[in-house]
């Protein structure tokens, strides 16, 4: 009698694990989570869109297509693209070296990799600006080569690349770690060159992770403010980023214009977030399936 009862239990659980709520706290945790998310996230975000919608299409269009604002879109998007491309290459190299090789200082290198996430952006900003200033540690040598970084769009790229460096490293690293060596070893033993095996066998597994990391890096760079403003020089039409543009409009007490530009930025951010999530979901499914 007792044994049949015991053996029935797991079978029952397996048949309906999704609907049965054995654990306590569903109502409480759902309530707290929904309350918090509504109050902290959804209410302020809908406030922005309602504000922007209230100003009328014509004025909205006029504000967001102001030539100075359009110039700032271009600067931001181009710099973010350049920074995330750099991070894709540099991040792949770092992830590869951290996973594949043993060398003294590897753990230290691994630990310092998250510095850009932990360091406040304003600190990163003044540090990079000082390094790349004309008389700075790097700036003085770059000046001899005729390269100006501080107070140019190149400075924006440097700041964005710094603050979003860990994304590609941290998305590629686990994929490299879990990669099965059989195919790679087989191809190598058949005499294929390193480059061929890398391109034909490793890259097909790695590139979704590189794209994910690159997209995260791009999204972060689009909104970067603290690190950028100290090194950018912030001259209108040349080196103003979108976030700064919103700040400038706020300082002019032009709330409608600030809201309109912010609504554009917010829409792009939310779309990017959605695309990255869908992409990750699909890519994770493939990993689990294969």
């Amino acid at each position, binding site marked *: 009698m007792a044994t049949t009862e015991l053996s029935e239990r797991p079978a029952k659980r397996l048949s309906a694990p*999704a609907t049965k*709520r*054995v*654990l*306590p*706290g*569903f109502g409480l*945790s*759902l309530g*707290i*989570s929904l309350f918090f*998310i509504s109050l902290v996230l959804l209410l*302020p*975000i809908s*406030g*922005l869109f309602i*504000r922007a919608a209230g100003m009328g299409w014509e004025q909205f269009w006029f504000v967001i297509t102001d030539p100075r604002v359009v110039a700032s879109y271009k600067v931001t998007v181009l710099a973010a693209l350049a920074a995330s491309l750099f991070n894709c290459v*540099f991040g792949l*190299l*770092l992830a*590869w070296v*951290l996973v*594949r*090789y043993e060398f003294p200082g590897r753990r230290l*290198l691994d630990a310092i990799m*998250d*510095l850009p996430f*932990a*360091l*406040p*952006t*304003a*600190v990163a900003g*003044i*540090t*990079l600006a*000082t390094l790349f200033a004309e008389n700075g*540690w790097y700036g003085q040598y770059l000046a001899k080569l005729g390269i100006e970084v501080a107070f140019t769009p190149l400075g924006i790229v440097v700041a964005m690349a710094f603050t979003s460096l860990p994304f590609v490293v941290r998305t590629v690293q686990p994929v490299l770690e879990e990669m099965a*060596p059989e195919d790679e*070893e087989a191809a*190598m*033993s058949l005499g294929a060159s*390193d480059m061929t095996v*890398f391109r034909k066998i*490793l890259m097909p597994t790695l590139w979704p992770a590189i794209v994910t990391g690159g997209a995260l890096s791009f*999204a972060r760079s689009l*909104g970067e*403010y*603290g690190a950028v403003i*100290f090194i950018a020089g912030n001259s209108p039409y040349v080196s103003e980023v*979108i*976030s700064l543009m919103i*700040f400038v409009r*706020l300082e002019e007490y032009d*709330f409608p214009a*600030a809201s309109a530009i912010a609504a554009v930025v917010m829409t792009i*951010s*939310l779309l990017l*977030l959605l695309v990255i*999530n869908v992409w990750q979901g699909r890519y994770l499914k493939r990993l689990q399936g294969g």
Partner: protein
Amino acid sequence: MAARKHRRVGDSPVVRRSLVGLAVALTLLFLFMPLALIFVQAFAEGWAGYVSNILNEYTLHAIGLTLFVALLTVPLNMVFGVFLAWLVTRFRFPGRKLLTTLIDIPFAVSPVVAGLLFLLLYGSNGWVGQWLGEYDIQLMFSWPGIVMVTVFVTCPFVARELIPLMQQQGREEEEAGVVLGASGWQLFRRVTLPNIRWALLYGVILTNARAVGEFGAVSVVSGSIRGQTNTLPLQVELLYQDYNTVGAFAASSLLAGIALITLVVKAIVEWRQSRN
């Protein structure tokens, strides 16, 4: 021959050495040198200069305000993060996926936009702000506003650390606890917490690092009034713009110290998790 059979890409000594060399050189230039610069600049006027810069009246006030904001923000986001992680990893319900996407929003939003969201709603001509204004309550350009935007910016961190771990651990242990008659609180303290404490610690440390260092969102809602609503990162900006570079880097060195502690805690947490 046996060694050749197990050769993998990039195994040749030349490739290995050059890749490691390149990675180390780039990391030195890109990460270590900036870190070194902060401390070199902070101590440019010697130890005495450093201490006097830190003991500057406004810098001290900024340190106090920053700690106060972190003290309110971190526990709030810790409690929320634990509840959200419990919800999405222990129960299946419609909208679960949406909830985990929503929680990522603060990561995707520019900090300046984040600040603006709260300014529009709670500022003197915002919906809530106008109503509060009638009762002489002002949230923006004072510490409550700073706390609100900091909560917004840092709310995903604890949940983001906990969710993957709790998903991986599954709910069998907790279900066993329920069968044995544990109450909800006992279950959390005796079963869940011991399993997640390291990830929770790192989530809290990360939340703290970001709360202490938030710049863009705070600068929109704070008004940067010296000695009143100036947090440490804003004080760094003010000093830097006053051409007091040494003072700015002295203040920065405190923030960099918190960043370094965060990295050390992360390394310890990962080491402990890999041992289990």
